[in-house]
């Protein structure tokens, strides 16, 4: 476990998460959530929890992103508020 690398990856994950709540375009928010999942996956790999990281990469970044894209496909792409 390397602390500076942890902090850098955590910063990227924080930026992706905050930006996902901030953007108006819902498809961009979905892609940013996928990026957040990949940064969490990198953090867990770096901390030694490879099984959790694998699950995060398969479910969080892979399948759930397509679920969100399918949900956006059936609704509007812009937020109203």
């Amino acid at each position: 476990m390397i602390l500076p690398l942890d902090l850098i990856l955590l910063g990227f994950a924080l930026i992706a998460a905050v930006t996902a709540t901030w953007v108006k375009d819902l498809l961009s928010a979905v892609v940013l959530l996928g990026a957040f999942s990949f940064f969490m996956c990198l953090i867990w790999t770096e901390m030694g929890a490879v099984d959790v990281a694998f699950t995060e990469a398969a479910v969080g970044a892979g399948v759930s992103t397509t679920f969100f894209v399918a949900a956006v496909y059936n609704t509007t792409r812009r937020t109203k508020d």
Partner: protein
Amino acid sequence: MIQHQEDIIIQTVCRILIPFMQVYGLYVLAHGHGSPGGGFQGGCIFAASFILMPIAFDLAAFKKRFAEKRIILLCSLGVFIYAGIGWLCLLLGGNFLDYGELSAILPVDPVMARYYGIAIIETGVQITVMAVMVSIFINLITGGRHKEETQENYD
């Protein structure tokens, strides 16, 4: 509504990628004992390979191949395999999911019977996870109209 259009790059990439994703899902399942992986992750990768098909190609043909009845049958089949192995161990005199007792019916010693028991229940987990993920995706993309054959909403 986003317009559907044929894209040769996406179709070619999916055609090349899908078999490798499926083999990788089976690899993750088969090496789940000793390395990271197992039924859940392998099932998710397997489901992702099936989800790529309607994204790149035809949704109607995919819906016909993965009909609702067949998906529900696959969901139940995985749970049946898992619970069936557990109850088989119970019937053979051990605890629930005590794979060592399977050596009475498998031609191996108890250590290898544990190995094969875990492999069989992970196969059940993979089948259920794959079927549930595909079912959730189809119901999301069609707005809950998996069973109906009408196409006017996504053409």
